[in-house]
């Protein structure tokens, strides 16, 4: 732990949402759902109370991946699809940090789709927030991996022939310990879900339906989202029941179920925690690194 790092305890009240807002002006289109997401993140961080310099916020490429720039923290806007590998390197290098990763559905489930499975099976303590708008926005309206079949976009002018990825089922199937969905139509609920995801000790995934006002379909606009929203709480869902969560996750694309789908009641050990244990165990009685060449002496 570096000398400037505060102990890993929550100090609510020390920070307010505005303390996490950076000076950069977002380049998002007026009315974009991401405006609400970043507000939710500020609120969640304030509730947790970690100072900005102890937070690393990593993203890939796309509209939503600009979000670390709008947040006061150590930010890294990386390359397309690779937020998670970079975020895990940060967490393994310094497990004391609060590490957040964020991006869009294309970034996370197309180009970066191969990484999620591995972050989940390693169970690295990172919170991954996907702003899912079912379209490629920054490249101006192409088909995304979560676009519904039959959807007309500039790369599917005759309608998409592909079945969409179901992000919730995807991460549940790989064994994620915390899976939730939120909506910008409910800022308070979204902030609470993000806060809970960050507090979960292990890999946590939050899917946020974040409407694209420019290329989005009507169903994903704020009004449309409100129409299909229902909370998991109102359905009496037990978030410790993984199979029930998978059943409900099938509603993706038709219903917008909000809340925690799954929270492992007995969180598994994290990879970063195990790394620390191994370091502690193997460093005992280790020769100084100045003697490393002694390994090459054949006695």
């Amino acid at each position, binding site marked *: 732990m570096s000398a400037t790092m505060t102990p890993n305890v929550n100090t609510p009240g020390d920070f307010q949402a505005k303390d996490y807002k950076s000076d950069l002006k977002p380049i998002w289109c007026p009315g974009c759902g991401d405006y609400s997401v970043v507000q939710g993140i500020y609120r969640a961080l304030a509730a947790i109370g970690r100072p900005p310099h102890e937070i690393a916020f990593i993203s890939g490429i796309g509209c939503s991946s600009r979000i*670390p720039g709008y947040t006061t923290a150590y930010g*890294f*806007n990386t390359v397309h699809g690779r937020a998670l590998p970079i975020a895990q*390197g*940060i967490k*393994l*290098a310094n497990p004391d940090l609060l590490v957040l990763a964020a991006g869009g559905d294309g970034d996370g489930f197309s180009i970066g789709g191969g990484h999620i499975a591995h972050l989940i099976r390693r169970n690295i303590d990172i919170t991954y927030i996907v702003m899912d708008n079912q379209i490629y926005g920054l490249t101006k309206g192409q088909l995304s991996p979560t676009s519904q079949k039959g959807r007309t976009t500039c790369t599917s002018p005759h309608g998409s022939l592909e079945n969409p990825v179901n992000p919730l089922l995807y991460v549940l199937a790989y064994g994620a310990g915390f899976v939730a969905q939120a909506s910008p139509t409910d800022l308070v609920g979204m902030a609470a879900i993000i806060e809970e995801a960050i507090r979960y000790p292990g890999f946590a995934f939050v899917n946020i339906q974040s409407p694209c006002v420019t290329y989005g379909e009507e169903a994903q606009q704020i009004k449309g989202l409100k129409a299909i929203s229902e909370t998991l709480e109102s359905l009496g869902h037990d978030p410790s029941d993984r199979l029930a969560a998978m059943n409900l996750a099938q509603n993706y694309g038709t219903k917008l179920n909000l809340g925690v789908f799954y929270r492992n009641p007995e969180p598994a050990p994290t990879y970063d925690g195990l790394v620390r244990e191994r370091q502690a165990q193997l460093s005992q009685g280790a020769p100084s*690194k100045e003697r490393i060449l002694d390994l090459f002496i054949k006695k």
Partner: protein
Amino acid sequence: MRKDLVFGMAGSGGDGIVSAGDSLLQAASAEGYHGVMTKSFGSQIRGGESSCRVRISTDPVLNPGGNLDVAVALNWEDFLKFGAELPVAGTTVVIYEAATGVPENQIPLVGVTPLQVIAVPIAEMAKAHAGTERAKNTVVLGLIAGWFGIGAVAVMKGISKKLAKKSQELVDANQKAFDAGMAFAKEHPLKADMTIVPLENKGGVKLLTDGNDMCAAAAIFAGCQFFGGYPITPSTEIMQFFTNHVWKYGGAVLQAEDEIAGIGAAVGASFAGKKAMTATSGPGLSLKSEMMGLASIAELPLVIVDVQRGGPSTGLPTKTEQSDLFAAAFSAHGDVIRPVLAPTSVADTFRTTIEAFNIAEYYQTPVIILSDQEIASRKETLDPIDTSQFKIIDRLKPTGADLQDYKRFKQTENHISPISHPGMLGGTYLASGIEHVESGAPTNSGSVHARMNDKRTKKFDPLKERKDLFEITGNPDAPLALVAWGSVAGVCREALQMAREQGLDVKLMVPYLLYPVAEQTYRDFFASVQKGLVVEQSHLAQTFKVLRMHLDLPKGLQSLARSGANPFLPGEIVAALHHLLAELQRSHEGKLQPQE
């Protein structure tokens, strides 16, 4: 008596050829000899063919040697697959497994009649004395001890140590097989005395290792605390060494799901303030190129090891080449300079790797170590290294004053900006692959982009001035010259010695810094040169072309370049130098004609 012996051995996978070579080199090293061993396989796990080449000498060795003095064939078919890597000459003693027989048209071998050809019933002896054909390699070691005087005691000591863990019977059986080999050698003397000169002064403790392990050890010594990578031949041993050792020093290793995630994690670790590394080979380097660009624009230190093998694509995955220079120096989009360093031996892999970390940290940049399969996989004996002579450089951290109004990419006189990391109070900033202003905020401004490009390229100017990254040997005014890097440099060092013994006035430049091209250093070196060779294992002569791209080369400088796998032989380079000298003399005669 001989001061230097080169052994080449080949057989089928499972014959224990490589382990015999290992035992031979270890025994020689225990007796105080210098040595080097290279291995070569087909690319399969078991079965197929495998070979090794062991050179043992009373003096330090610079490369694995030229023609074989001793060829050991456990199987002719397999031996002949290594024709060019294990060249037999008129001075070679050939020992072969009697049971496999010799097809009549194969001796002489490729038109060469060896000095002596001896059939030995190796398998039969192993069976008779050790009870199993698996002891064939021990019989071979007994033959070598008997004929060449290497390792009579030390070989068996090493074998016993290894086998004692299994059973005493196995040790006894192998001792019998070894003794049988020795006895056979005594009963069938060689035509010429080929015993090696015994050493009076054993020269003390030696290290014995290969380039990959040396690279990983050096990285840990340099303070590397994170390794992210993906298995790929012939670089994987670097990751394996890390997984064995780096935890002890507070570090971590990630065997990632792919090459991109491997380097990504290393980029992340560097952003988090730790020295980080990844290692790969050609195809993996291609996959990593986008991340290398990211680390360049985000000005993050990172060391990438590329253990070159034959390419393109899967190419010759188990064999050496020097054909990744273009990829190492140029595989990124945009205008970017990425330092590329190359070690020339196992021994200087230590220094080169530390240098790579120091350059990465000081200049806040990715650095590529361009190793090659031969250096990475070959074992060398080396004298203990005085580690206290190495200075370790860490990145420039911001001070209190910098943190008052912290600007991560602040324009400074030497273009190096203090770099903070998560956890540092007052140092928060946005790193990105997007062009940015001094604070890190994204920009689309062309003028800022031009200024930042200037910062990111000019910062390397002092690197190009460093003379210590070049080794120049020979008469500075010599009219003849050689330029070579990587494993080929070792061959050229020996060629230089041979050429000078033959009266040629020739000098050699070995660059450890391949890129950026240090124009002035080359200009100075070439000032006296009328004829010369850039020697490299690249079909396209990549080094020659990169040099030509950056500076005017002397007219007489030629490229001696060819594809890899088959090593250059020192004698071949000396022959080319004689040819150049003859051309030079002819042109001088021309000039001596009266002009008026």
